[in-house]
């Protein structure tokens, strides 16, 4: 009896939830998805908060004019726990039930790849934030018609890291420690090694661990024995902090280097002195005057600092609004077409979408050094 009541209540709630969003003529629905729960929740919440904040601001300023008519923007966001299967569910829901005209996110490449066939079926474009795997937008040499992104890709990031380590830091012998069970880490490792060796450097140690490991001493000891000039650590801040601390305990004094998985407040608080003097490749310079305004607005509204993803989803919104204005009508197809010829100035740099790859062309990477517990911008660095 009671169970039946609960089931009935759930069904009613679902029915209400699914028909609650009455369609209004002057509202454009934009989907967002990412991890609001799970180990990637920090970034997911940061992205969704940014999207909501920007939409509020845009609406307060009169909305977006599409084809001579003013529309307000509405964000419809769902959690997928960073899970690929749920990513597919969520995008099916966004496109068929919520009828969004575009989707923002996700941050993970493994979630951005399987949604492509659904986007194509529904003719709704997606702008990924920090999904850096090349296969997110291009597969088997063919560009996916409805997948776009605002970040540079892993081969480029790997080339930047290798180039900077070799040319600027003068490293000739590099060691790599990476997360074998993580797609992002494997990709970045591969492209770093490829480029570092092309430059004439030697990779003297190539050690791996798997997600969830907390002890890196065996691998670090092997790396120490090879006495490299630099240690490349292409994984996320939590493991970076742990492995950096253990490396210092083992007496490894070399410079550590990483990619865009590093930047987080957590890295400094957990890593402390261990990551002092280390470098990483980033999408932007945090002290750039272009980003200061967004940073301050976010801090004021939510009371916490924004993470890296916020900047990129900010530019995804900029890109989308620009495409909407030029699309002539608020439909997925028209927006996708407009996105192909987009050329806007975002806070992370100029975003000129290449029609062949749907990636932003020639976006420079920023090299950041950790000095005194602060992220200090070194230079914009472009790999050839």
């Amino acid at each position, binding site marked *: 009896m009671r169970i039946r009541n609960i089931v009935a209540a759930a069904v009613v709630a679902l029915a209400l939830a699914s028909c609650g969003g009455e369609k209004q003529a002057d509202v454009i629905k934009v989907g967002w998805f990412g991890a609001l729960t799970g180990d990637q929740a920090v970034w997911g919440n940061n992205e969704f908060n940014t999207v909501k904040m920007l939409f509020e601001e845009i609406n307060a300023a009169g909305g977006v004019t599409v084809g001579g008519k003013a529309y307000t923007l509405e964000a419809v966001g769902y959690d997928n726990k960073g899970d690929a299967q749920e990513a597919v*569910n969520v995008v099916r829901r966004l496109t068929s039930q919520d009828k969004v005209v575009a989707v923002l996110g996700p941050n993970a490449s493994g979630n951005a*790849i399987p949604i492509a*066939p659904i986007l194509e079926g529904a003719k709704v474009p997606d702008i990924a934030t920090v999904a850096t795997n090349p296969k997110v937008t291009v597969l088997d040499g063919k560009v996916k018609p409805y997948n776009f992104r605002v970040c540079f890709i892993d081969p480029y990031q790997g080339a930047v890291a290798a180039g900077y380590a070799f040319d600027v830091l003068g490293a000739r012998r590099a060691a790599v420690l990476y997360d074998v069970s993580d797609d992002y880490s*494997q990709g970045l490792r591969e492209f770093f090694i490829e480029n570092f060796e092309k430059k004439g450097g030697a990779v003297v140690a190539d050690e791996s661990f798997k997600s969830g490991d907390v002890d890196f001493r065996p691998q670090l000891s092997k790396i120490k024995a090879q006495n490299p000039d630099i240690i490349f650590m292409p994984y996320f801040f939590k493991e970076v902090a742990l492995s950096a601390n253990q490396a210092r305990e083992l007496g490894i004094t070399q410079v550590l280097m990483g990619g865009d998985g590093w930047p987080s407040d957590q890295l400094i608080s957990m890593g402390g002195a261990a990551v002092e003097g280390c470098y990483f490749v980033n999408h932007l310079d945090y002290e750039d005057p272009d980003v200061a305004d967004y940073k301050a607005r976010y801090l004021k509204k939510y009371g916490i600092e924004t993470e890296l993803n916020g900047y990129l989803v900010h530019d995804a919104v900029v890109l989308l609004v620009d495409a909407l204005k030029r699309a002539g009508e608020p439909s997925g197809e028209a927006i996708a077409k407009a996105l192909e010829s987009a050329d806007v100035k975002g806070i992370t740099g100029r975003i000129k979408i290449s029609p062949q790859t749907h990636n932003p062309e020639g976006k420079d990477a920023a090299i950041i050094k950790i000095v005194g517990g602060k992220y200090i911008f070194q230079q914009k660095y472009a790999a050839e």
Partner: protein
Amino acid sequence: MSSYIEGILMLSGINLIAVLGLSLLTGFAGLFSFGHAGFMAIGAYSAAVCTKLLGLPFVAAIAAAALVAAGVSWLIGRATLKLKGDYFCIATLGFGEAIRLILDNFQGLGGARGWPGIPPRTTLLNILILDVIGVVLLANLVRSRHGRNMIAVREEELAAKVAGIDTFRYKMLALVISAAYAGVAGALLGHYMTFIQPKMFSMVKSTELTIIVIFGGLGSISGSVLGAVVLTFLPELLRAVDKWRLVVYGLAVIGIMIGRPRGLMGGFELTPKSIRAHFARRREERAIKAGRAAEDGDEALSGEADGKGGL
């Protein structure tokens, strides 16, 4: 039907196939496995090799997935089925993780970055067909002599042995068949997602399958069907409660397990026969109450209301 509902139905159907297999192993032969996602991964990758690299038709890919998964499970079974109870469980856990890590390291099939571009061959129709075949095969198996022997092994291995049942052989049979089911489910999942990544077949997936089997009720095929559909839909239904979704999901599962420790359908089987028997019983009860109602009017009314609610 919106593509959203269709997608979840397809996922339920895919989960169902894996759960049916696990139901045989856990529910009928009494062996717990926390490595079935490993067999799904084997199925998914072998099927993808068939369609994407060898250009074989989907039917052949599904058959290959079942065969390869069954073959691997036979090898695993040879090595581990002598282990008793918990030890076997730990061995399967290790197996599942090992498969995932091998795939993570094997760059030929994409490594940890996954393998995109698998042709989208899975449809709701072919899932439904395989679901029906799966249920019919399993229902016939558990009612056969072999099925009864498996149940005997589950209930009391030593006694079964004394009664002359080759317990190792029946445990092996259950393992191989359940692995073949998992392989088919993996093949369908890969061609539904069009992308496979070792991460998709982690221990979480194995535990999810075991939870569905126990939630549905050990030793009940209809329970497994119900469990697979309910637990695949539940997280999506709970999107209304936002970030608390998975908390509520967990609480719901705990609540039902406390309320019904044997699972939704533990021990019961929903067959045409059992449904008829149920209605016959209801009719009988109603007849008795009607008889009583003739005697004293007021009490009977409330009595009948109770009768309706007490399902």
